[in-house]
């Protein structure tokens, strides 16, 4: 794949699994100095910067009671602090990337997140880390 047609456009989000959401939120707000984008019962999103194509670049903390489904027993949700990494793709590449990944024999889970106005593809790397291809889509409400 040469440089001109690389599909990954940027780091969209890094999410870590946390045990104590309140303590960790306080640290990331007050020590790291990030702006809270959204706080929910089991997660908090911080806006780090403007991102690719209308998306924001986020750091998220997820309560460990809210792990992504993992098919990788070697990576227990209790053991790893990496929840997932989201990489930006262009909306026009979204369907072709989904087909390409599926064509490589990977299990791909497609979903939308209304409040972020994004479409997402979830899949795993060979050592079980959860990856997300995320495309900003204004029509997702």
């Amino acid at each position: 794949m040469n440089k001109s047609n690389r599909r990954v456009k940027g780091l969209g989000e890094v999410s870590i699994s946390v045990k104590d959401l309140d303590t960790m939120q306080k640290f990331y707000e007050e020590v790291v100095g990030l702006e809270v984008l959204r706080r929910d019962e089991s997660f908090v999103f911080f806006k780090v910067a403007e991102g690719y194509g209308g998306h924001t670049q986020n750091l998220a903390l997820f309560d460990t009671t809210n792990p992504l489904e993992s098919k990788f027993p070697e990576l227990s949700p209790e053991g790893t602090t990496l929840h997932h990494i989201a990489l930006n793709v262009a909306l026009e590449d979204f369907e072709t990337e989904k087909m390409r990944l599926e064509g490589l024999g990977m299990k791909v889970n497609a979903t939308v997140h209304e409040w972020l106005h994004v479409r997402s593809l979830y899949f795993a790397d060979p050592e079980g880390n959860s990856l997300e291809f995320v495309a900003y889509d204004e029509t997702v409400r």
Partner: protein
Amino acid sequence: MNKSNQSVTGIAEISLRVHDLDLMRKFYEQVLGLEVLREIKNSDGTVIVVFYTVGAGDDNLALFDEKLIDWFTRDKSPQIDPKLTTLSHIALSIALDDFESEKKRIEQLGIEIIESGTSSWMHCRMFYFFDPEGNLIEFKSHDESIQ
């Protein structure tokens, strides 16, 4: 802290601890199509870290061989079993102008700066600290004077 004085300007890098670097490289290069920025080699010539460019900006993703485990955990992160977590560290960008003041601010909050350093090939300076659950956080500034 309000929005106007947020010092962090972006996620500079996410680094993963990997078990099988060759296998993982193949995936990140061929499946995700990431471009290799730099390989770091051991004294015996084996590649132990691979940095990738992510997109057109300055975002990086890096794969750290688990042999480097001591580098990012030492004995300072007792909450996290390094064999179980795949997160090596997260680097956040800050302006060079804010570098010393942020370091001082964080130290004054009673948080230990566990390492400070520079990287000649990345032309940057950085310092590291742990969050309350033992994740390693890096604050990093681009500095052209570091060559």
